[in-house]
């Protein structure tokens, strides 16, 4: 299949179940809310080394947030409810609480819940108080610019992690521009994130290494400089490869994000769009590129 001269390989991305949470972060201004969300998403690119994958989602209009202030959603993914609770506590406590004028609310109803505000309240050192409103408890923790309001419990829901696209092109700057366009399209999809810097990853990894204790290593088949030393998957004219990793709250959100990403990446300088998988042996979810495009009505 070709779209605008770019070959879409007949392959699939293999994805895995993950546990997900959605935080709604508000502040006095949209800039402050975004700042708090971005810090909350810090160093959370890959579950391999960070224990979680986090991305800033869509801006939320003031009319849609619990406190009527501008906000951003933050999507947090991890491999177990316990780990997710741990990283949520760290991120809310160490990044969002210190952010000026911020507040943090639960934005998802899940099968499980994690007590975050209920533990973070002890930072109030006995001066904290709470309000129970419509069955939800909110903690008010005194801080030096007023109060940090945080919800007691956050929902933990089954999500999907590991959706991906591999973009292969002729010239690095052009492939990067295509990848950035794809990342933007992915991040505009409700319930989906691309957790790498700017949504783009230049270090796709393979499982294992020639060194013991190294769980993941560079995926040499996509490295242009190793073309003569490995079983390269690059076309002779390919100069650069970028990967986009996609996590979503549902299979549909991952599928929609991948489709939007493919369409946005089909532009000048691109040769091939592919996806990474393990032959279908590892993850229960398969996102077939051709099928996604067919469902979107985007087939040529």
């Amino acid at each position: 299949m070709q779209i605008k001269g770019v070959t879409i390989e007949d392959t699939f991305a293999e994805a895995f179940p993950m546990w997900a949470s959605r935080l709604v972060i508000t502040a006095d201004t949209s800039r402050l809310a975004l700042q708090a969300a971005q810090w909350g998403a810090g160093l959370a690119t890959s579950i391999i080394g960070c224990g979680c994958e986090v991305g800033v989602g869509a801006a939320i209009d003031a009319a849609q947030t619990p406190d009527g202030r501008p906000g951003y959603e933050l999507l947090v993914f991890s491999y177990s409810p316990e780990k997710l609770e741990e990283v949520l506590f760290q991120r809310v406590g160490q990044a969002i609480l210190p952010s000026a004028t911020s507040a943090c609310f639960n934005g998802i109803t899940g099968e499980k819940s994690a007590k975050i505000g209920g533990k973070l309240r002890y930072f109030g050192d006995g001066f904290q108080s709470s309000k129970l409103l419509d069955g939800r408890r909110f903690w008010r923790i005194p801080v030096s610019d007023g109060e940090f309001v945080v919800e007691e419990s956050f929902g933990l829901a089954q999500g999907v992690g590991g959706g991906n696209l591999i973009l292969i092109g002729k010239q690095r700057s052009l492939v990067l521009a295509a990848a950035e366009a794809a990342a933007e399209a992915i991040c505009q999809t409700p319930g989906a994130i691309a957790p790498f810097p700017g949504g783009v990853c230049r270090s796709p990894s393979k499982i294992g290494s020639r060194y013991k204790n190294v769980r993941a290593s560079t995926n040499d088949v996509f490295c242009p400089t190793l073309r003569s030393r490995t079983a390269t998957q690059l076309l002779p004219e390919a100069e650069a490869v970028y990967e986009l990793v996609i996590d979503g709250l549902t299979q549909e959100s991952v599928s929609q994000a991948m489709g939007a990403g493919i369409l946005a990446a089909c532009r000048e300088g691109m040769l091939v769009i592919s996806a990474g998988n393990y032959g279908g042996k590892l993850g229960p979810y398969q996102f077939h590129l051709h099928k996604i495009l067919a469902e979107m009505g985007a087939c040529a």
Partner: protein
Amino acid sequence: MRVTLDFHFETTLPVDAAGLLPLKVLSLSSKEIERLQVRIGSTSFALGDCCHIACESDATDELVLAGHTGHLDNIGRKMDGSRLTVKGDVGHCAGVEMRGGELVISGNAGDYLGVGLQNGLIRVERNAGNHCGACLPGHKEGMTGGMIFVAGDAGNEAGAAMRRGLLVIGGNSGDYTAVNLRAGTVMVLGTCGKNAGLGMRRGSLVIGELQGPLLAGFSPAGPADIEWLRLYRKKLSEWGMPLPKGWLESNWQRFSGDRLSLGKGEVLVHERIQ
């Protein structure tokens, strides 16, 4: 199903309507409803002798009391679900120890409205008497949950000894508002009488306009961060009890107290723009 009880029986004696609970009445046939007993003064009467009964099977579940309802006491007492609407005034003790559901009163409510409320919503479209949302005589705690919205004024001791829940008074409240408050939230969009918050341990009293100084047990704590009040603004708007426009955009002062008690409570006072 909607059942309407139209009270044509005029009396100056108190009428005990404690048995007229929506979940119970809606489960009965019209013949069974007619045989229900209500006490007028010290005498029991069959409901069929006091009111016209109308049943509409295709309407949403609701018990409606209409006609001469002003002497009905104990309406919705220990009510635990569904909806009870009163088209007119009610007597004393409406919604006492209510556990769930919605009680809507289109007129005025007497004393002891929602006393000991545990859950559910009470909405009064005009005024409420004394001890609204307070505690029963001899009890230590008032409301332990639920919400009371009074569109007009409330009498003395509104929200007294409240343990949890939300009481919003759209107009003014009398003396000793939120006296001995233990926790929960009392909002008076107008002004309070004397001794507001006396003996308050925890909780929040929000006052739209302060007429005189607060009691000596309250210390000024400077400008208030009203982030948590914004949560209430949105919900109250959804529940049909909106806060005044621009209320949260102006300045608020916070007082902590009452130091004569535990002292962990707060009074937020709206600074009106002159």
